[in-house]
């Protein structure tokens, strides 16, 4: 039963969705502060190369994770500085961050006399439980068979949800994203809140990036993450800025990425669908979901922060 195509596809979807959860939850936190960060793709790549390098040097996955979090936070500081302090266009700054991060990760991957490119990872994330309860029918592979970061992603989504909607800090954060002037007059330091949450979002994006070369494809290769950063930005809307929903949106996307291949192995009539059509599934899904969620009256209940993308000038009303 545990090797039925359905179970195997869900297991694969969980693996593919995990890095998207980190990046999407990170971007939700950033956007809840009113800052649109289109630099997720670049930040994930910088986190990926930092995490891979740290594990490669030390042999420690923990250090790899720490490095990816720190690199992601530090890298997104550029966007925070440009968009909060300099108040430049967040779209331009974010795009620049992605172009910069893509080049930087590629450069770091092949810098030095003994470059990282083409090197296998020294260690990788594997299932934390093998055998025993992980072999139980259905719930074994679905609940117990994953690597540690899958569970960390669940905790991250839950914690972010609690933080946003159940804590005083979360209330301040949402106020800053909705109406920074009012938040300021209520005593919230808008710039400080935005800096902290842009960096927190960047840290999570960095962790999501590191999941690729340390778990999914344990090697350093140029751009090991595909287009994950862009997908994460779309998933924020699909999840309507709620961390719990990001969990399901990310798994849905993971499933779509996997199903295009599973259908090809199922034989007639599934294999008659052209592979190029199947390859479009995740992206078509994203467009449909975004249109469905953002059109008409529903958009008002979507949860997009009102001040998203708008630079805040303290003295202007």
């Amino acid at each position, binding site marked *: 039963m545990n*090797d039925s*195509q359905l179970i*195997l*596809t869900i297991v*694969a979807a969980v693996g*593919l969705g995990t890095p998207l959860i980190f990046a999407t939850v990170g971007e939700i936190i950033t956007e809840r502060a009113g800052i649109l960060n289109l630099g997720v793709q670049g930040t994930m790549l910088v986190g990926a190369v930092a995490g891979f390098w740290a594990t490669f040097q030390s042999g420690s996955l923990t250090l790899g994770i720490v490095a990816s979090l720190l690199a992601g936070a530090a890298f997104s500081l*550029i966007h925070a500085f*440009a968009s909060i*302090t*300099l*108040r*430049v266009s967040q779209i331009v700054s974010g795009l*620049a*961050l992605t*172009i*910069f991060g*893509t*080049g*930087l990760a*590629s*450069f770091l*991957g*092949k810098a030095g006399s003994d*470059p990282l*490119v*083409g090197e*296998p990872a020294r260690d990788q994330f594997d299932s934390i439980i093998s055998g025993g309860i992980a072999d139980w029918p259905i719930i074994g592979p679905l609940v117990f068979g994953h690597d540690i970061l899958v569970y960390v992603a669940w905790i991250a989504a839950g914690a972010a949800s609690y933080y946003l909607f159940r804590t005083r800090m979360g209330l301040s954060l949402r106020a800053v994203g909705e109406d920074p002037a009012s938040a300021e007059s209520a005593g919230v330091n808008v710039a400080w809140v935005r800096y902290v949450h842009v960096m927190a979002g960047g840290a999570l994006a960095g962790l999501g990036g590191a999941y*690729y070369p340390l778990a*999914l*494809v*344990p*090697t350093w*290769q*140029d751009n*090991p*993450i*595909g287009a*994950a950063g862009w997908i994460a930005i779309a998933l924020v809307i699909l999840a309507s800025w709620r961390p719990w929903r990001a969990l399901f949106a990310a798994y849905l996307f993971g499933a779509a*990425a*996997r199903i295009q*291949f*599973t259908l*090809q*192995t*199922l*034989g007639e009539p599934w*294999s*008659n669908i*052209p*592979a*190029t059509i199947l*390859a479009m599934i995740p992206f078509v899904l994203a467009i449909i979901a975004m249109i469905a969620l953002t059109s008409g009256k529903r958009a008002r209940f979507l949860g997009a922060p009102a001040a998203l993308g708008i630079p805040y000038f303290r003295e202007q009303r």
Partner: protein
Amino acid sequence: MRTGNLRRFIALLLALAMVAAACGSDEGTETTEAGGETGGDPMKVAFVHVSPVADKGWSWAHDQGAQYLAANMDVDITTLEAIPEGSDSQRVFEDLAAAGNELIFGTSFGYMEPMLAAAANFPDVTFMHATGFMSSDNMGNYFGAAEEGRYLTGIAAGAATQTNLIGYVAAFPIPEVLRGINAFTLGVQEVNPDAEVQVVWTSTWFDPPLESTAAQSLLDANADVIAMHQDSAAPGQAAEAAGAKWVGYNTDMTEFAETAWLTAPVWDWGPFYLTTAQQVADGSWQSEAYYGNMADGMVDIAPFGPSVSDETRATIEERKAQIIDGSFSVFPDPIVDQDGTSRELGDIFGMDYFVEGVIGSPTG
């Protein structure tokens, strides 16, 4: 006001730094000087690759060829890596020609038309394009019969499979890829007529997470050997993790999956690059479409992994000797296609069908 200007200045600086960093990494330049001064300036030769040469795949194999050239002839080699395909690459080729390179190699399919245009503007420079079909008076093209290596690796895969299902992670449905799948399958069936080859298309040349996912879907469909066409080692790592076997491509990738590794069709471009450079140097070069093979050494197979039995190795070596001396041809004529009907082999450079034993669609 003054702080406003300062902010703009800092923003501009940051933007410039980002652009510089992005450009710097995209067009990494390396110059290798060959040892030994033999009077006069060494001939300048340039290579343009689509991915970083350290990728241990396609571009790496070409770079090994460039190093072989540098070690055997007094040349001054410029290597440009990660140059995107398409019309922008024409500027790259023209810059290289203007910089005094007498011989310029472009090693990816999508450079074909830009290189043709650049060749027309620099009639005194020799251009060489890999894997394409266009040429002119000063632009030749070259490729090799990877199908010969594919056939031999198919023998290794056919002997290794226990489930009689072999997964093939395929790139794009073009003749080059179809030739590879068909030759591989014929090799599989020579030693194991019951085994079949299941193809899945990724529509990528290099996307590690996607190619890993494709391999995983094949493993989950009960395949126990994975073959592939893309440049990443990701399918092999998926096979290793699942305890399956792996036939790679381009280079010896043992280090990525030591237990799973069987062998791979590999390239040796070095001797061809040396011959071409020597012909350009002495003026005897002529534009042609060169198709290398196992006999001239451009195509070979990688060293065997530990699980390949002595018997299988002997079978492969025997076939290899027959391919080299010309007594065995990979594709029979007539050939039996996927539906079991016998048909004329036709032009293998336009191959658009699957042979018997392949599961999947040849149109992608």
